[in-house]
């Protein structure tokens, strides 16, 4: 009952937002040039959905590719670092140098090195996801409670078994959390990269739309990319619940 009540509040906030949008646009207080109304939105959907989906497709491939490669690399390198003191000592300064760099700040460099195209855009996403995931992975391994490791060792586990049977499962909740953050960031990064230099992709499409004052196209792009980001997040949340049924968080 209580949960239901709370849900109603969330629903209400969405309704109010849509209401404000309808009020502002239908009343004519805000011109369609600045904020398209439902009619304009419907029109642009019917006329340009093919274009939008095509560009979205390009974007998704880069985003997904960059996210998967960056996250996987982050996990693997993170696990390597946390498994060995020498690797850790070697990698630590490198990570400390990379960590504070705002990913967007390397766009000019990437364009200078690699021109405009899919590769630099994907690399930007790889970089962003890599840094997020590697830092969380190393942190998560360090935070595995000592007592689990000690218990495993007194039950006969060697270091390799401890790593496989204790460290890996224990860090899964933090890892999935980090992957969720990385997935969220990857959408922003890929669009930003396309703003700066691309010949296709939703970011490119939005820049063109801006040049021709097509606010309706921009709004449609925003809606689609947000929907995709939201869906991705939901998918990871479902995965998270599956993987961490045992953890205290879901009781």
């Amino acid at each position, binding site marked *: 009952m209580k949960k239901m009540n709370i849900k109603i509040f969330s629903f209400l906030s969405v309704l109010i937002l849509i209401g404000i949008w309808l009020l502002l646009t239908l009343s004519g207080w805000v011109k369609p040039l600045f904020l398209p109304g439902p009619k304009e939105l419907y029109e642009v959907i019917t006329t340009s959905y093919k274009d939008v989906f095509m560009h979205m497709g390009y974007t998704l491939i880069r985003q997904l590719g960059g996210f998967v490669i960056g996250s996987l690399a982050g996990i693997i390198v993170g696990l390597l670092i946390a498994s060995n003191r020498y690797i850790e000592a070697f990698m630590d300064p490198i990570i400390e140098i990379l960590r504070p760099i705002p990913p967007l700040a390397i766009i000019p460099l990437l364009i200078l090195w690699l021109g405009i195209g899919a590769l630099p855009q994907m690399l930007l996403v790889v970089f962003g996801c890599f840094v997020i995931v590697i830092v969380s992975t190393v942190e998560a391994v360090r935070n595995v409670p000592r007592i*689990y490791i000690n218990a495993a*060792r*007194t*039950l*006969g*586990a060697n270091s390799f*078994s401890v790593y496989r049977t204790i460290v890996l*499962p224990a860090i899964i909740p933090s890892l999935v959390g980090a992957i969720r953050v990385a997935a969220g960031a990857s959408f922003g990064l890929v669009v930003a990269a396309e703003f700066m230099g691309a010949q296709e992709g939703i970011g490119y499409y939005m820049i063109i739309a801006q040049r021709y004052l097509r606010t309706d196209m921009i709004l449609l792009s925003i809606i689609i990319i947000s929907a995709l980001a939201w869906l991705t997040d939901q998918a990871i949340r479902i995965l998270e619940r599956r993987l961490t049924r*045992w953890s205290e968080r879901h009781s």
Partner: protein
Amino acid sequence: MNKLEIHGLSKVFQSQMGPVTALENIHFDVKEGEFISIVGTSGCGKSTLLNIISGLESHTTGEILLDQIPVQGPGSDRAVVFQSDATFPWLTVYENIEYGLKVKKIDPKQRKQIVEELLSLLELDKFSSAYPKELSGGMRKRIDIGRAYAVQPEILLMDEPFGALDIVTREMMQDELLRIWSERKKTVIFITHDLEEAMYLSDRIILLSPRPGRIKEVIPIDFPRPRSGQLRESQEFYQLRNQLRHIMGQ
């Protein structure tokens, strides 16, 4: 025959404020199948001693012989039940108890048999597929005990296993432990700061004095077994407790 022998053991920690002698000249034997308790005030080095025996902690001088062989590093011949919660939260009750057997690569059929026997011995069969977070503290402690029993250690080390439980649950767990122990004789070293708990469970009590931890007294406990709750209320029990408390306070 002595199961465990400890000779001239000492432990000095290097802390920021200089060296701290946690244990000094510890010397005792434990016989096969014996239930021995180590009692002392907080900070007198009980956990340090147990961690050294388990191999999780190094020692400064002396030697520890298990079946006449010096122990080196941790191993499943000296399974430990820790004071704090050590059940693996990502494994079910069944998988927790199975853990050490899997690590040792015992074949699945034998594994199943050992785990199922322990589950019913510990009255956990109904919860075998539950995760630890769904269980009470007392039940989680039973998982820890089952997990340690499963690997069939030469000696079972217990560090204040019931310290976090309320008095009623604690006494229940003591009876439970005695029941399991009488069914499967195991050499046990049990750490506690609760005198009555030590008297109720043990064949012998080793009293430690604090700073540095030294053996103050070794007291045989001759109450007949099997022991039950009545013993706790008997005159002899009461007298012995007062006597021990007096020694501890000195």
